[in-house]
């Protein structure tokens, strides 16, 4: 029963069933998913419930610190994400992706619009959401383990209990043996694993990823994408990711949403129907190529309106 889900979704590369045994069951997540354990491939269609994330008419404006002038970064964006869905927003850098994600995270106060997670209004950061930033920003005076449990600690979970809960995450992100290292002793990829573990251990209903692998070299990035695929396979987290890497978006997501150039509006939306579980192999399918080209085309047309198109695939 515990690893039934994983057995139905064998992952040939990353041995997902082994990982599933350690993975604590996230209460809210699993309830929605219960139908999935018998009919895994139709889960998204079979759940008629309200969306996990509901964003209506979101507007984000920034005030210029010198002139007080207001500029719009996100303009009337509406977006729904179903439980268990992996949705990625792509767009030119500076178009307002991070602003949108930070608003969902509760770090940026929107000028207008409503946001709800599981029906609850977003009003600042909350335990139902965790963010993985592009920069790992691990606290340098804390060990890997103490960085991972940081979120739990802030929520008042006693350290020994928090450490115990982190054990399964440490296996999940493959940090076993590094628990007592300090961040500076880790490579960029390892630091990003800690960053990811810190978010996962809090068992958020919605995982927010802001260009999580953008600062890594190409090889490490592919490895981390694999890891994320296998982690997602095991946990079936609802994920909202932001990236400017089209291939990454197509590889990981169920849905790719292209933001228009600043101020961000919802542009085109792509349903990614590549079979799951996915691995890097998916890149070599014609469907992948086709989707990547389509997404690229849409982004490129918004880039060509810029003075200096800075978009590179």
């Amino acid at each position, binding site marked *: 029963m515990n690893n039934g889900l994983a057995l139905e979704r064998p992952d040939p590369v990353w041995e997902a069933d082994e990982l599933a045994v350690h993975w604590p069951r996230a209460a809210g997540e699993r309830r929605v998913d219960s139908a999935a354990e018998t009919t895994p491939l139709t889960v998204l269609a079979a759940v008629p419930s309200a969306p996990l994330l509901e964003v209506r008419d979101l507007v984000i404006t920034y005030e210029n610190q010198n002139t007080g002038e207001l500029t719009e970064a996100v303009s009337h964006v509406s977006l729904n994400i179903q439980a268990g869905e992996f949705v990625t927003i792509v767009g030119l850098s500076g178009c307002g992706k991070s602003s949108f994600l930070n608003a969902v995270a509760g770090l940026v106060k929107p000028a207008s619009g409503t946001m709800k997670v599981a029906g609850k209004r977003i009003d600042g950061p909350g335990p139902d959401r965790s963010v993985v930033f592009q920069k790992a920003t691990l606290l340098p*005076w804390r060990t890997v383990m103490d960085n991972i449990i940081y979120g739990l600690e*802030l929520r008042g979970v006693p350290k020994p209990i928090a450490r115990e809960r982190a054990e399964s995450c440490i296996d999940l992100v493959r940090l076993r043996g590094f628990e007592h290292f300090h961040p500076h002793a880790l490579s960029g990829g390892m630091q990003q694993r800690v960053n990811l573990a810190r978010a996962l251990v809090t068992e958020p209903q919605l995982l927010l990823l802001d260009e999580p692998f953008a600062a890594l070299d190409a090889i490490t990035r592919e490895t981390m994408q694999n890891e994320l695929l296998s982690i997602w396979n095991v946990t079936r987290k609802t994920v909202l990711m932001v990236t400017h890497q089209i291939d990454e978006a197509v590889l990981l997501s169920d849905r790719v949403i292209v933001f228009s150039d600043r101020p961000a509006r919802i542009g085109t939306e792509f349903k990614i129907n590549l079979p799951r579980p996915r691995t890097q192999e998916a890149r070599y399918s014609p469907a992948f190529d086709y989707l990547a080209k389509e997404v690229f085309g849409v982004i490129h047309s918004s880039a060509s309106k810029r003075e200096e198109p800075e978009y590179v695939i």
Partner: protein
Amino acid sequence: MSSDARRFRARKFRENLFSLGLSGGVFVLLFATWEFVARAHLVDPMFSSSPSQVLLTGWELINNGTLLKHVLASGKVFLTGFGLAVILGIPIGVALGWFKWFNRAFSPLVSAFYTMPRIALMPLFIIWFGLGMGSKVALILLSAIFPLIVNMQVAMQNIDADYKRVGIAYGANQWQLFSTVALPSSIPFLLTGLRLAMGRGLLGVVAAEVFGGAEGLGYMIQYAGATFQIDVVFVGVVVIATIGVIMDRSLAYASRRVDSWKITET
């Protein structure tokens, strides 16, 4: 251990030994010259004393308890003033750096005090607090507190915004942000502040005791100078310098230990 590592260690050891010998040699040369010019009467020993005389006098002052008495007296004043500076300076600096409005209200006042030569206030302190502990502690406190205030203020204002954002994203309240982000990241600043404060505090002790009172190393030096006991003056100077160096080195060592999170720890 591999032979490479052994050879490396041996080389490092020789290098350290050599630099130790070099700096020691300079001292020996200095003292030898001093001793020589005093014995050869190239200068009047009455005014210059000599290393051997200073050693002899030092030994005598230790044995008859005079030195200990003055060291204890100075130590008591220093620890009181420095302790108060730490207790008051750190929270004031933290508040100035953490609360924007506190900063706007009090920063100009702090700057005004910071630039004022503290010793100029000593006559006032003597009038207010008397010639005993009070005035001396006041001077040390005023000397030592500002490096602490300013360093803690700078520490709070230099907290990495990304660390703060992580804390906020994971639901930290103001107190948690302070204790899990601000405080740990301010420790290098705190140690710098303590080192500066300690130096200022030591100056303050000597200055206060030279100014007035009847005990302490500063008084001992002042009195010995006035009565042409040059050797006693030198004993006092050496003792103060030694105490200062020891305290400074231990704080420097602590700084390095704290910075160890930047070095591999397994």
